[in-house]
């Protein structure tokens, strides 16, 4: 059975591309677009990993990451952070808050696939 990936991202065409890409590899992809309700989405879908955009409407990806790490069931959930800024400060923030991996937009599809494979240990 395919592992479950939850993609939290607000750009519809990016969602579509990533969803297609991962589905074709056999993963089961759920998506969510609103930052404010992202934690509820994680709790409801119980994914094997999360792809999390930093710039989300209503709540920053960093805040969501911090809360995930503070949660009992999600503390060790693999999280791949996506950001549109490749600055060192962003990378440091992501690492400090406990991101499993960090990827700068625009990323290549093979980069995305290998990161997901690695994080899911498949």
């Amino acid at each position, binding site marked *: 059975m395919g592992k479950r990936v939850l993609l939290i991202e607000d*750009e519809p*065409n*990016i969602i*579509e*591309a*990533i969803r*297609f*890409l991962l589905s*074709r590899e056999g993963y089961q992809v759920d998506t969510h677009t609103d930052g404010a309700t992202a934690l509820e989405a994680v709790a409801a879908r119980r994914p094997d990993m999360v792809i999390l955009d930093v*710039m989300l409407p209503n709540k920053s990806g960093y805040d969501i990451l911090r809360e995930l790490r503070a949660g009992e069931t999600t503390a060790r959930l693999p999280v791949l952070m996506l950001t*549109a*800024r490749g600055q060192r400060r962003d990378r440091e923030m992501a690492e400090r808050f406990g991101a499993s991996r960090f990827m700068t*937009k*625009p*990323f*290549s*599809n093979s980069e*995305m696939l290998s990161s997901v494979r690695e994080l899911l240990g498949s």
Partner: protein
Amino acid sequence: MPASGLTGSRIRERRTALGLRQSALARAVGISPAYLNLIEHNRRRIGGKLLVALARELQVEPSALTEGAEAALLAELRAAAMGHREVAAEHDLAEEFAGHFPGWAALVTAQQRRIETLEQTVAALTDRLTHDPQLAASMHEVLSVVTAIRATSAILAEGGEVDPEWQARFHRNLHEDSRRLAESAQALVEYLDSAGEEGGQVGVTLPQEELEQWLQARGFHVPELEGEGALSPQELVAREPALNRARTTASLAAGWLERYREDALRLPLERLREAVARLGLVPDALARELGCELPLVFRRLACLPDAADTVRPGLVSCDASGTLTFRKPVDGFPLPRYGAACPLWPLYQALARPMQPVRALVEQPGRTPRRFLCFALAAPAGPVGFEQVPLFSSTMLILPEELAPEDPVAPLLPVGASCRICPRGGCAARREPSILTDGF
């Protein structure tokens, strides 16, 4: 006043102008011609009796030989050296350098000023790049669209199975995204273009400096805004090219001139002149007589039109952070261009005692120390209410001693310009070491 700034050069110019021989002048003041030659070439510093004797022989006031430009030039040279400690410029030879090579010394100080201005501009632009929300939003939009295009086109181009329905969908997405990208790139270019134009102007001088230069050129008096049939401040800004080259300068100038106009309406020039003629330059007496608050009187006194030959008061104001927000310079009382000034100024004392008038006779250091009678008051900068904490700003009027009313009842307060160029030792208010080892 001779053109060159240094005491020795001034002595030489004055002597030549009188047609005196070096040996004759030396004999008259009881020194050797060789020593006078050293003095005239700025290789020996003089003061006290010898200076007074030379001034008498040259038929000028001693202060005419020493004051003003010299101290400022040397302070600027030393500040320049301070900024580049690693090159170990010969601090103690600054005077000699300025004396021997006045042109080069002027170049060093001009470049120092230019560097300071550029540093400010770079800091402002960096701030803008980091904090400008419009730029950040545009960049984010462009990167998001590029990301979608890259991921989508790679799916189509890199092979692998894509059924026709998905293919059609991805083509539609690509088309949509490419149009969005074109639009956001266009918006970004337009934004950067306009920022560039403005930045180009800002690069020359800061808005506050542009306004002050404009005011300086007209002696800080703006007849267009005085009396009947005055222009509106906006009209004035619009017709003065120096004020509307950059948007930031234009809005700063409009704000300043707006208040000038209000001040002029509340305290017309003729009323002020008449009261000054009767009561003298005594701000509190003027305020009582005219029914105005003190800061208004300070500002109007500083903006009196030039009467021939009189020294006019300086004015400086700051906000609650101590940042100087307005500077009208007066000879002998240096006002720092950037950074904080001397914390002993009555301007700052007033901030610590809001609404209480502060008066002090201050002394600026120098080879010939200069005294000024300062009046300061800190008052709320905007409307006050019970709902908000008032924001205070402080204003200080600087009267050169010779303008001060007879017998000022004020304690003498030694102050400086700012710590870096202040020679005073043992000062409790010092926050950084002085670059002057032995005073001026």
